């Protein structure tokens, strides 16, 4: 086993994150957060951006961290909350809303699963001064669940359902996350993918071509499907 902990940089800071905090982050660093974060995914984006509803809390004063997440959580009849595990959902699907969301919310950190394309980082994140943190694994639901100290509020639970609602969490030592993109738009996923691509052709070298080709799909295995 490789001794990892000495070699990967580890940082912890408060939310709302300052521009200085964000500027220190290098791709591949391990991050833990304290403060307030909120969830928002297609249901919330659709409501705010497509339907023009007001964001129901003061952003970015309360928080500048948007988590692409639905918690495994229940709202009790007395209005209390039971939060079990917390895990991210794949972010690439939200690309079309992110530019407008940065404008409206002032978000500087997006947490999610799997990152976004290098193009999105360069076109949307860099101009907004925002970076991307990816969850680890991806199923550290219990570790992240431990980091949630309190549900501050839930918006649109009735309209969107628990999974798509906007949850506002107070968090402590919330992580681990890995920095995927930095302020220059470099991407850890992109760099790792390029290293792996170098080996791909050799895997197929001895395999004969298929009897039936497929229509309408990429045949370049170095491409990503997102």
């Amino acid at each position, binding site marked *: *086993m*490789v001794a990892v902990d000495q070699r990967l940089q580890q940082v912890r800071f408060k939310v709302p994150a300052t521009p200085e905090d964000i500027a220190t982050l290098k791709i591949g660093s391990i991050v833990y957060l304290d403060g307030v974060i909120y969830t928002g995914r297609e249901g919330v984006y659709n409501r705010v951006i497509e339907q023009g509803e007001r964001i129901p809390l003061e952003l970015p004063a309360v928080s500048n961290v948007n988590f692409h997440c639905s918690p495994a959580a229940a709202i009790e009849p007395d209005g209390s909350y039971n939060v079990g595990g917390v895990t991210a959902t794949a972010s690439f699907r939200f690309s079309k809303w992110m530019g407008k969301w940065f404008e409206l919310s002032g978000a500087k950190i997006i947490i999610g699963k799997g990152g976004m394309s290098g193009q999105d980082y360069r076109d949307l994140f860099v101009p907004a001064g925002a970076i991307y943190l990816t969850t680890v694994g991806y199923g550290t*639901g219990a570790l992240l669940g431990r980091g949630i100290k309190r549900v501050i509020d839930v918006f649109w639970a009735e309209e969107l359902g*628990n999974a798509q609602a906007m949850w506002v969490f107070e968090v402590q030592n919330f992580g681990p996350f890995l920095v995927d993109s930095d302020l220059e738009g470099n991407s850890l996923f992109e760099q790792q993918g390029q290293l*792996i691509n170098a080996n791909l052709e050799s895997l197929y070298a001895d395999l004969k071509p298929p009897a039936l080709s497929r229509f309408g799909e990429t045949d370049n295995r170095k491409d*990503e499907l997102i």
Partner: protein
Amino acid sequence: MIPYDCIEQAAFNIMERAAIDIPEDYRQSIVELADTEQSELSCFVLKTMIENYGAATADRRPMCADTGLPRYYVKVGNDARPEGGFIALEKALRSATARATHDIPLRPNRVHPLWRTDLNNNVGINAPEIDWSFEPDVDWIDLTTVHKGGLFGTDYRMLFPGDGIDGIKRFLLDALIAFGKRGLACQPAIVGVGLGGSKDACMVLGKQAACLRIVGDRHPDPKIAKLEMELKDLGNSIGMGPMGFVGSSMVADLHIEVGYTHTGGMPMSVHTFCLASRRATVRIHADGHLEYRTDPQWFSKYSRRETVEWSQ
């Protein structure tokens, strides 16, 4: 007669076990992969996952918040008699799903595909899925639940006999590379490969191979068992680890299930059961006694039979 309440409670209990406690066979395989993994980032991911399994069990909270599409596999002994018959049994499974969603809690993932209506209980039209199989000469009922995410990592392709083993390898590589990038498949995975059958059966067999056989289990046909190992090694030679980082930990194990198919074709499906490979089984004996385990023992000599008549 097996009481209704006993079935409902057993169905609830396995939902809780599946969501929280990682099966030992899979956990052990991740420990072993972490020992051999040479990539710093991939090793960090595997160690974090092992830590997460411990946190889930210690806190009694779900190991992954995407509790997938919770569903049931039911194996009914030919002599088993559930109270109220099979309609009541299906009701018990739907009731347990709704109760578990609120009480554990599970994420209420199930929505209408068009209107996105969420009833917040993981029950709805055609949900949860209930797969049935039967076993001769016994009077118990085995309930298995699987919590598997469902967005990435599964694919289907019609291959042809002339494509042979090369075609199988090509498609497997394509599927693992495509969905392995950025770790969308949440690897290292237990990979299930369905070969043959009708198109729908091919998908079902591959899914069951991934979710209902444990790490280390080999197909009873020695030639298929050998192919399983060969394909597992192929997957781990891609150079990709967890989260699509450079590494060697892609496939925790690989299982193949076959079904007799059309003479002109060789349909194939690929499924990946993820870093939170959640399954739990309970055997409900005729007297209502419950026995829990993590090996579903879904495939049996009877279920894989190739003769008209069944004889032991």
